């Protein structure tokens, strides 16, 4: 029984959920008070996109869907909406590896910046699509720029965290 449980507990996905909980804790406490440029930093989105950039399309999509679902659970918006947006963003970021086999660090950061910006713009449209209107306004461009700037600054750390979190085996 323990032999079966151990691989699950030690798996990268369990680690992702645990790290996700810690990051979500920071998101709902520190980053609701600390609002650089007047916007809320999107750490869960950053972690998801960083996972995509580091490990590719498939791992990124699963990480994005998982982290997005966790974020959905603390938000007032429909459950599953962030999951879809984050999953899509992380998968898009992971598509970088289709074009460049071993992207340099600045290309990874550029991919994070680009996908973050698009995801932040897509989210209000997704809200409108499910009937929650009122968010598609010029302000969303300012929000997207703010979040993108924060994510660009924090992306080197996010890449390190995502690399460690989703490593196949911690011993490697």
């Amino acid at each position: 029984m323990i032999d079966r449980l151990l691989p699950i507990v030690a798996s990268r996905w369990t680690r992702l959920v645990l790290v996700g909980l810690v990051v979500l804790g920071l998101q709902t406490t520190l980053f609701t008070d600390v609002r650089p440029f007047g916007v809320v930093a999107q750490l869960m989105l950053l972690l998801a996109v960083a996972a995509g950039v580091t490990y590719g399309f498939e791992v990124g999509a699963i990480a994005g869907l998982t982290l997005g679902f966790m974020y959905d659970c603390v938000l007032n918006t429909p459950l599953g909406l962030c999951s879809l947006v984050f999953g899509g963003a992380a998968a898009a970021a992971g598509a970088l590896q289709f074009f460049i086999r071993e992207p340099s660090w600045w290309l990874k950061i550029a991919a994070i910046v680009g996908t973050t910006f698009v995801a932040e713009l897509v989210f209000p449209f997704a809200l409108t699509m499910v009937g929650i209107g009122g968010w598609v306004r010029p302000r969303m461009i300012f929000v997207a720029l703010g979040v993108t700037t924060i994510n660009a600054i924090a992306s080197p750390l996010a890449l390190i965290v995502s690399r460690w979190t989703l490593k196949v085996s911690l011993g490697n």
Partner: protein
Amino acid sequence: MSAQRRRAIALLALTSIILVTLDLQQSGSTSLVRSIFSTVFRPVEGVARIVTRPVGNVWNGITNYNEVVDENDLLREKIAQQEGAAVAAAASVRLAQELLALNGLPTLAGINSVSAQVIGDAPSNYSQTVEINQGSESGIKVGMPVLNAAGLVGKVTKVFANRAVVMLVTDPEYALSVKVVNTPEALGPTAVNDPDAASVSSSSTTTTTTTTIAPSANIPGFTPGSNVTPSSSPGVSVSISVPSLTIPASSALGVRETGILEGRGPSRVPIVRFIDPEQRFGTVLAGTPIVTAGGSLSLAPPDIVVGKVSRVISRLGTAGPVLEIELVADLSNLSFVRILLYQPITESTTP
């Protein structure tokens, strides 16, 4: 391995779509999922809050120091101004509540409430909510109105055992029936406190005595009236100098009209729509007070102060004007709130 991952992606994406659909249908299963996650996440959040509080305080100290000092000075001045007025206002409120209670009308004083501390803001750029540290264990239910010392703040949208999420009035999803208490433009010439009117006039030709009393102060909307009382002995003139009640002229009373208050997101003031443009209501001016309308279906009891009209946007035809509202509650700086344990009659009678 790749096929397995693709199946996982498809499964997760499909689950997300199903969850979105279920949540939009307000299914109980999504509430259960949130509740379970909240139970798991709460200890992590608690630790994160304790650990990160000093960092947050340092950030606020650096970025908001000058604003806090200026605000402090301004607040000291305001407190000095309002201390005197508050005593008189409290007496008036008490009197009004007693009068309402005497007449069997509902008052806010008769509704139990729970005080709560605001423990967190919305962790997203696309929702206007705050989290409070009281929940279902204190009797809080979804939909209950939330106020602070100034006025209406929002309504409870999610309840957990010992915390709840409050949707602010500025959220685009927020809507509430409100009353616009308009004062007629023309009050009539008798509204002026004329010293001559203070004199007592009597007539002795009829079987009744008429006494005219002047008001002690100018009260907009209230005019000196006449009390006609039957005389005890016919033909005898009686002069009364004791002030008595005056009856306001009906045309001079504040006219109330209902509309729907709607939030419009951060940095945009809420609006009131669906105001009847009929002539009787008159022209709405900036500064007109807005209070909750109440009613058997409304989630809030009547007469909670919401704000005042800051701008009137006129529209052609029968659409009626749109009113921009300046809220009395400062939603950017909430510390403590009061949740009224109020349920509309239609819900409280349901078993």
